[in-house]
């Protein structure tokens, strides 16, 4: 009984370590995927609001805007870095951010709607 009691925690510890290693690998994998643009960050457009209004991503990340409004929207960068065509209901637009910085954007059709992408 004692041996079993002492062995179980040891096994649990090994298991925890192994799982930790797996999670660490996964986390690295996710970061790598984001950096390569394979797993894009998303901004939802709903009720005339960008959600989240400010999004932080790693450099090289692809950001995707998805329009859930019944009204057409379009995203356009304040400094002319990107400008989408009209994004109709349930359509999306993606842009890959290469360089670190703070990027302000608006809806080209509803300029009171604005948001920020911060690239680390």
């Amino acid at each position, binding site marked *: 009984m004692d041996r079993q009691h002492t062995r179980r925690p040891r096994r649990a510890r090994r298991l925890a370590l192994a799982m930790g290693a797996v999670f660490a690998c996964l986390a690295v994998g996710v970061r790598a995927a984001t950096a390569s643009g394979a797993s894009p960050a998303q901004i939802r457009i709903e*009720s*005339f609001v960008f959600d989240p209004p400010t999004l932080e991503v790693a450099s090289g990340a692809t950001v995707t805007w998805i329009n859930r*409004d*019944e*009204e*057409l929207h*379009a995203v*356009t960068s*304040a400094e*002319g870095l990107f*400008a989408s*065509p*009209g994004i*109709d*209901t349930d359509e999306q637009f993606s842009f890959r951010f290469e360089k670190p910085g703070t990027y302000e954007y*608006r809806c*080209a*059709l*509803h*300029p*009171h*709607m*604005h948001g920020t992408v911060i690239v680390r």
Partner: protein
Amino acid sequence: MRDAKEDREQALLPPTSRRGFLECMAWAGAGLVWSLSGGVLSSRALADVARNAKTGRGPGARRSGGLHFVQISDTHIGFDKDANPDPVATAREAIARINALADEPAFLLHTGDLTHAQKPGAFDTVAGLLQEARVGGVFTVPGEHDVFSDGGKEYLARFGRGTQGSGWQSFDHGGAHFVGLVNVLGFQNANVGALGAEQIAWLERDVAGLSSSTPVVVFAHIPLWAVYPEWGWATHDGAQALGVLKRFGSVTVLNGHIHQVLQKTEGNVTFHSALSTAYPQPAPGTAKGPGPLKVPAEELRTHLGLREVTWHGKPGPLVVVDSKLG
């Protein structure tokens, strides 16, 4: 009777060569007439105006001289959502109303959002629709839907003839001076519409030689006054443009964009926001945003319409009549 080709040619002629003005206030619609008298905005039933037109006395009475034109706005050709699955049909109904007028309007003003987001083929369709209007000419200003994706390139190629900059323009007609302003480019720096310093400087030069007693009619897409900045329903530097026009005794500002009739008077300036021919939008602040307002299909035409404007060439306000399609 003129043929369609002649109509098309007339639409392309410069304003000075267009036919003289005809006035008529007879109008089969359920509109109200708004006019300025002693600084107070007042409304009268349209029937009164029609009666005045017949008797030759009172506002709306026919007199020699003056001007007569129509305004439509926000045709949004290319829109296909539930709020109006067929905006071509409703735009065509508005044009049929114009063509049914007893006297042909000198010209038609379209105050922008000709297309819905510059959808493929939309400019072709709207150009064809405008040719169906029996008017002496057509003047347009762009809405944000007409210019947002290419900075106005296609709009200017099709409708920019005789305009300057991003499409601003002016002309004289019937004793009044008309100015078309573009406030739908330059959104990057403001939450609302913007004219820009270059256009305002042009406006200053444009009106410099005019007598202060000349009635000035300004047409633009977004309201020049702050209707509801929270939804972008204002023009950042609109007050600057109006400042340029301060010395004039009569300034009438016609706009679209908000798809509803609103009036305001400020000193010598009257503002008139027009109905759309495509779909209504909510009253300021009554919804989450300024999107299409869905109404029961049988009610749609009571939210759409057009506008007829007359002026009799004597000191006094322009008479603005908004009329609904149904």
